[in-house]
Each structure stands twice: as C-alpha cells, then as structure tokens.
C-alpha cells in the first residue's frame, strides 16, 4: 500500500510540511483567488450537472414505473429485523432512490416511536439519494454501484446494531 508510486508524486507534500505561500499583496491575492474560485465553481458545477441530471432522470423514471412500490413490498420482511413496522420500508426505499426530504415526507404518514424513528433515521442517513450521489462518486473515479450497495448494506447493519444496543441500554 505504502510503496504506491502515486503517493510520492511531485505534488505530494508530506503531512505537516508548510503549505505554499500566496503571492505578495492583499488585494491582488484576493482578486486572483476570486477569479480562480469562480472558475473552479463553474467547472465543478458543470461536472456535477453532467452526472446529476441523467441520474435524476433515471430516478424519476424508476419512480414512475412503480419500482418504489415494488421494492417496498420486497423490503417489508427486512423491517422486522430492525424492530420496525412493514410500512417503514416505504420511506427507506423512497430515501434510497430520491432523497432525505422525500423520505421524511413519507415517514410523516407512519406512527413510529422515538426509538423506531432513530433506527430508521440511521439507515436513511447512511443510505439515500443513491443514484445521484453515486453518479458524483463515479465522477470522482469510484464505482458508484459498489458504493450504492455499500451504503445500503452498511446503513441497514448500522440500524440493526443500533436497535440491539438501544435494547440493552
């Protein structure tokens, strides 16, 4: 791991080394930074746009095709393991495909105890908006699909462990 050539590139200052100094003069520096910031901002905005909009379209299509309803039915038995009612599968799946706000919206319809809210919150906070955020990770050079799967599995595992621990306390 440590002998990787990428870790010792010319740009790779060792941790703790002094960072490069900005050029002299306060206002010239600020002006240069503002310009660089706007350029970097627009570039990043464009990078994100290219991946987020198609991902959003796919997600909307999945929703319209009834995939959310179908997945919620499939996930129902899993909810018992979390100490949740079967209906809690809906906000979970909505959160996975859409976002936290949509998940919270569909949670309003359920009658949950504070403990159940916390368990469900942990699962949703770790795994949500998987298509769009997966696309961003893909852009950063990672495998978006693998990360989506990781967030579902790790989120459910975190919720199971939290539920068990809360039972002990």
């Amino acid at each position, binding site marked *: 791991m440590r002998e*990787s050539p990428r870790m010792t590139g010319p740009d790779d200052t060792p941790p703790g080394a002094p960072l490069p100094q900005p050029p002299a003069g306060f206002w010239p520096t600020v002006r240069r930074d503002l310009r660089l910031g706007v350029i970097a901002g627009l570039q990043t905005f464009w990078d994100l746009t290219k991946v987020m909009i198609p991902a959003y379209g796919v997600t909307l299509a999945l929703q319209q095709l009834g995939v959310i309803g179908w997945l919620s039915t499939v996930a129902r038995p899993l909810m018992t393991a979390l100490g949740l009612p079967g209906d809690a599968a809906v906000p979970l799946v909505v959160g996975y495909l859409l976002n936290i706000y949509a998940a919270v919206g569909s949670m309003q319809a359920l009658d949950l105890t504070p403990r159940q809210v916390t368990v469900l919150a942990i699962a949703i906070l770790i795994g949500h908006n998987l298509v769009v955020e997966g696309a961003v990770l893909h852009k950063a050079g990672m495998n978006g699909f693998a990360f989506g799967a990781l967030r579902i599995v*790790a989120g459910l595992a975190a919720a199971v462990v939290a539920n068990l621990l809360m039972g002990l306390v």
Partner: protein
Amino acid sequence: MTEFLRTFATGSFDLLLRVFLIVVPIMVVLEVFEGTRSFRVVVRGWARVVRHVGLDERSAAPTLIGFLFGLAYGGGVIVRDVRRHDLGRRQVFIMSVFLSMVHAIVEDSLIFIALGASIMWVVVYRVLWAALVTLALTALAGVWVRRRRRKGSGDLEL
C-alpha cells in the same frame, strides 16, 4: 409523458439552482480562504482528526466540505483536487467511503432530530460507525490490492 417531462424539467432546474447556489460560493470562499492562516489552522485541526481513518492533510479540506455540506459538494471539491493535483486513488477511496457513510452532518441530522430521533445516535453513533467502516474497508481493500498485485496485474494503485 408530458407530465414526466414537466416534472423532470422543473426538478432538474431546482436541483441545478441549488447546486449552483452552493457550489460556486463554496469554491470562491475556499479559494479565498485556502491560503489564510485561520483556514490552515482549521484544516490542520481537522486533519489531525481524520488522520485516524487514514486521510492525509491534502484530503482534509474536501473531507471537511463533504462532512459539513454534503456528498455532492465534497465530491465536487474531490473532483477539483483530483484534477489539480493527482490525489492518490487510495486517498479518494478512503474519502469516498467515509463521506458516503456520513455527510451533511448538520442539515441531514437536524431533519431527523426534528422528527424526534436521538441526537446521540444520529450524530455520535453515525460518526463512530463511519470511522469503523472506513477502517475496515480500507484494510480489506489493501489486502485485495496486494493480492491482485502479486498475481501480476501491476498497474493497480491503492
């Protein structure tokens, strides 16, 4: 179909507007303050924390942005830094795992705390869980890469 297209158009506009209004100011503020002493102090302090999950000082800034504001924005800074100075794949991997477990710590957590979730579990437990998963997966990926390298597919770096 027209209904779908209309939702897609307005939704895309909303999404892009929100991303634009957050990303451009973040980048400008980051660029202006990146060189200042106080920003360095904050990043150094944060670097000392995230060192424990295997992140170096250059990964500290994107990780901090993602941790505070969200994966998309932190991811944006990661993409920028990957482009600017070739961040190692190992660092990008660790950042991605950590940030995919916990990001937008203030905004996302508050929504659920408002619904009645416990702050202790939603914040403290989640951060600890993220650190644990990050360490475990980094170790696992390290083993996997070393095994692949021994088999002879040499150009993998992690």
